[in-house]
C-alpha cells in the first residue's frame, strides 16, 4: 500500500507561536510535523505520513472566516493530502469552529475525509458534525494523549479504506446521518428486548435517539380579552392553492405569511393542505379543520376578543429540522411582538 499523505491543521497556540496575543496570525504552513502533528504521525505508523502542517490564529479564522477558509484550503491542498486532521480543539470555541470549518471545506472541495476532535459541548460540534468526523475528546489539553489516540484509530481506518460503522461503534460524534441495513434480528424482537431491559431497569441503547429539547417560562396570561389581538399559526401545511411560496411538503425550510383579513372562511377553492405527513382528505375538504379561521372570525365578530391578526403563518411540520422550526418561531414571534399581538393559537397535525 502506498503511504497516505496526511495534513494537520493546528492553531497558533499548539504551533508554539503564542497564546491570545498571537491569535490574529494569518494562515501559514510548514512541511512535516509540528506540535500535536508529531504525535499523530507516530501513531499512524507505516500506513501514513504527516506531510505538512497548516497553522492559523483562532481569532484570524473566526473574524475572517470566508478569507481564512480559502487561504487554509489552498495551503492544505498544496500538500496533495489524502486526509486532513484538525485540532483537537477540546472545548476552545473559536478553535473548534475553525477546525470544523476547514475540515468541512476540505472534505467538500478536495473530496477527502477529514477528522477533528472536540469536547461534545464545543459549539463547533453542532455546527460541523454533519460535515466532518468529530471525535469526542476531553475539555482541555490534559486529555491530549487519549484524544490523539482516538483520532489516530479512526484515521487509520479511513486510511486503510475500511468501511465505517455507526458513530458510537467507531468513536465519533453522530453525524445525524442514518444508514439503512439489514439486521439479523427483527424490529419487533429488538423492540421487545429493549422494553424488557427497560422494565428490568437495565441500560439499553435506543435505535432512534431523540434530540434534547428546551423550555421557556410561560408568558403571563391575557387579562382583557375584549382588547386582545390574536394570531393564528399552523404547522399543518395549509397554504393558498398552488403553494405560491413553494413550502416543502416535508422537511420544510420556510414558512408562508398569508393575508386573511378579507376572509371569513378557509374554503377548498382558495386554500389547500400540502403537508406530507398526514392524510389530507379532510383538510382539503375544509381547511378550517386544521387552521380554524371560520370560528375565529365568528368569535371576533361577536366581540369575544378584539381582533384576529390579519395574517396567518403556516409551514409543514414533518421532518422539519428543530433548528429551522426554532428560526421560524423566532421570526414569527418578533413580528407579532412588533405588531402588538397579544396571544397566539398554534395548530399542529
Amino acid at each position, binding site marked *: 500500500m502506498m503511504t497516505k499523505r496526511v495534513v494537520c491543521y493546528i492553531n497558533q497556540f499548539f504551533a508554539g507561536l503564542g497564546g491570545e496575543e498571537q491569535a490574529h496570525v494569518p494562515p501559514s504552513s510548514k512541511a512535516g510535523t509540528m506540535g500535536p502533528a508529531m504525535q499523530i504521525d507516530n501513531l499512524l505508523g507505516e500506513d501514513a505520513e504527516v506531510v505538512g502542517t497548516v497553522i492559523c490564529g483562532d481569532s484570524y479564522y473566526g473574524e475572517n472566516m470566508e478569507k481564512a477558509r480559502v487561504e487554509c484550503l489552498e495551503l492544505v491542498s498544496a500538500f496533495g493530502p489524502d486526509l486532513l486532521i484538525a485540532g483537537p480543539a477540546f472545548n476552545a470555541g473559536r478553535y473548534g469552529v475553525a477546525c470544523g470549518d476547514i475540515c468541512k471545506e476540505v472534505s467538500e472541495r478536495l473530496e477527502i475525509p477529514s477528522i477533528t476532535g472536540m469536547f461534545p459541548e464545543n459549539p463547533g460540534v453542532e455546527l460541523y458534525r454533519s460535515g466532518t468526523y468529530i471525535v469526542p475528546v476531553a475539555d482541555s489539553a490534559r486529555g491530549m494523549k487519549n484524544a490523539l489516540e482516538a483520532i489516530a484509530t479512526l484515521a487509520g481506518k479511513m486510511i486503510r479504506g475500511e468501511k465505517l460503522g455507526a458513530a458510537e461503534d467507531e468513536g465519533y460524534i453522530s453525524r445525524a446521518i442514518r444508514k439503512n441495513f439489514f439486521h439479523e434480528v427483527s424490529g419487533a424482537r429488538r423492540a421487545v428486548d429493549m422494553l424488557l431491559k427497560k422494565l428490568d431497569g437495565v441500560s439499553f441503547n435506543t435505535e432512534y435517539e431523540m434530540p434534547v429539547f428546551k423550555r421557556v417560562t410561560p408568558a403571563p*396570561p*391575557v387579562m382583557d380579552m375584549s382588547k386582545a389581538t390574536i394570531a393564528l399559526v399552523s404547522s399543518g401545511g395549509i397554504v393558498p392553492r398552488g403553494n405560491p411560496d413553494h413550502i416543502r411538503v416535508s422537511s420544510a425550510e420556510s414558512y408562508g405569511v398569508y393575508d386573511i383579513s378579507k376572509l371569513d372562511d378557509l374554503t377548498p377553492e382558495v386554500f389547500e393542505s400540502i403537508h406530507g405527513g398526514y392524510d389530507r382528505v379532510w383538510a382539503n375538504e375544509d381547511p378550517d379543520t*386544521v387552521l380554524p379561521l371560520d*370560528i375565529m372570525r365568528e368569535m371576533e365578530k361577536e366581540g369575544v376578543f378584539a381582533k384576529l391578526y390579519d395574517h396567518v403563518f403556516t409551514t409543514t411540520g414533518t421532518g422539519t429540522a428543530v433548528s429551522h422550526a*426554532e428560526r421560524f*418561531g423566532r421570526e414569527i*414571534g418578533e413580528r407579532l411582538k412588533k405588531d402588538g399581538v397579544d396571544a397566539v393559537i*398554534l*395548530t399542529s*397535525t
Partner: protein
Amino acid sequence: MVREIENAAGIPVVQIATIVPIMLTVGANRIIPGVAIPHPTGDPGRGPEGDRAVRRGLLERALRAIQTPVSEQTVFKS
C-alpha cells in the same frame, strides 16, 4: 416553533394538536388536545354543524387557556 414564538414575543401561545407528549417535548406551555392528527380543529364525521361545534369548543378552551396564569406546562383537558 411554539416555544420560540412565546420566547421571542413574550405572549402566551396555546398549541392545539393531537399528540400531547410531542407538545410537552417541544416545550408548549398551554396545551389543548385536538380531535385527530389530520383534523385537529374539527370533526367532519359529525356533519357540518357538529364539526363547527367541536371547533368552537376547542377555540373557547384555547381562549380560556390564554387567560389562565400557568407556571409550568399545562394540558387543558376540558
